[in-house]
């Protein structure tokens, strides 16, 4: 079942008087439970495309449909809250919150509060193998552990689509492999779609499909 679709998505940025095309009519779709590795050289438009998939940017032309709902300026935050989980290259954890609080706060933002949020945060933090470090601050965790907290945060709240931007870029090889394996297991277990933007060839080992983007178009 298709959960995310883009139809002829174009994106242009204006720099001074110049209009720079970044994405040139991308048609793309992801099934529920599917893992897609989105690859391409630097400057190819991967991150811009991921931002559009993540409802952070809107396309200049074309359409994005998530869970059957067309994305528009008015419902960007709502769709992000309801349908999407993010994992960032820089982890982007809140430094003053413990691991479990990071997850719990993301749930609060999604409207889940109180005991329900605590229970769900506990569930995902244990699912990523950090039950014994749930009260650690990010500064007391290794890179791999931080990324696992970020994955837990993305998983929390049952968002059906997970988007990851270079999730292994700041990890050593062993930690990267471990994180990817865990990511795959959890995404498959919970039937979540996972789109990973990456340069890392290891991602191919967990992906169901590889999409390549070059000069703003899928190739």
């Amino acid at each position: 079942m298709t959960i995310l679709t883009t139809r002829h998505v174009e994106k242009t940025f204006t720099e001074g008087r110049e209009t720079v095309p970044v994405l040139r009519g991308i048609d793309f779709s992801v099934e529920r439970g599917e893992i897609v590795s989105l690859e391409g050289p630097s400057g190819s438009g991967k991150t811009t495309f991921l931002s559009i998939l993540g409802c952070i940017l809107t396309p200049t032309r074309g359409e994005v449909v998530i869970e059957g709902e067309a994305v528009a300026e008015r419902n960007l935050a709502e769709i992000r809250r309801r349908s999407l989980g993010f994992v960032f290259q820089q982890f982007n954890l809140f430094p003053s919150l413990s691991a479990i609080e990071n997850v719990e706060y993301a749930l609060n933002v999604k409207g889940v509060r109180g005991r329900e949020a605590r229970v769900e945060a506990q569930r995902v933090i244990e699912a990523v193998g950090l039950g014994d470090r749930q009260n650690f601050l990010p500064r007391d965790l290794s890179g791999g552990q931080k990324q696992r907290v970020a994955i837990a945060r993305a998983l929390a709240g049952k968002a059906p689509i997970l988007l990851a931007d270079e999730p292994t870029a700041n990890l050593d090889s062993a930690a990267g492999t471990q994180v990817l394996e865990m990511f795959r297991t959890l995404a498959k277990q919970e039937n979540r779609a996972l789109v990973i933007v990456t340069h890392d060839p290891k991602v191919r080992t967990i992906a169901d499909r590889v999409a390549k983007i070059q000069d703003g178009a899928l190739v």
Partner: protein
Amino acid sequence: MNVSLPTGAVEGTEVYALEDFSRWSFPQGVTEGDLGDLRRGPYMVLDDSAKKRWGAFAVNDYREVLGRRLKIIGRTIDAKSFTTTPLTFMDYRLAQSLNESELRGNTTYILIKLAPGANADAVGAEIRRRLPYNDVYTKADWAKRSRNYWIDSTGLGLNMYITVFLGCLVGIVVVAQTLYTSTMEHIREFGTVKAIGGGNRDIYAILGKQATIAAIAGFALGALQAFALRPVMSKIDLKLIIPNELYLAVLLGSIALCLTAAMISFRKVASIDPALVFRT
């Protein structure tokens, strides 16, 4: 009234003169002498604070008030004027006789003591009805009138308003600057909040909480300083009285000021592009 001191200097004093002090239980804090004796002759009771301006004095000393030698027959403590001018207590008729041209035959104020349980407002209304060309005030009205006089009719009020205004202005600028710097330092985190589905309201809530914490911390520090200043102020014969209502008003005012100061940060976070979370 003017008092000639043994040194030859002339100082001022505020004179409180009643027919019978003991009926008014005023002044309180008599440490030497008997107020009832004031009616017996050219006597006066001085507050201890007078020694700062007049030099040391003792009961049975004499001081010259408006050219007439009066014997000091008692001493009070804590009977102090807001202006720090020493207070002197003497018999009503004696005070009139000291300045006959101005005071003899003139009655400016009449103090009325009500029987227990009497309704002050009702009595006031009745006096107004019977003496329509006189002003009638309750104790609270008179106190308010006195405060208003100092605030509205002297430079003190303007000074105070300017001080409060500058305090608020500097406070807002400092808090605004601090919150803005903090916001800029955490801009990526705010971007993350937006990226994971949070709206401006979620971030406003964070900033609002920070501003409120800053206000409460600032209030606590200020209140502690005020407490610490009390003994220092009393050394210069000023009593620092801060009613609970003022504490509450200052606390609420501080929170309002800090939230106002957070507006610049609110504007900044409203324009945060969540796409910044993808930038390395």
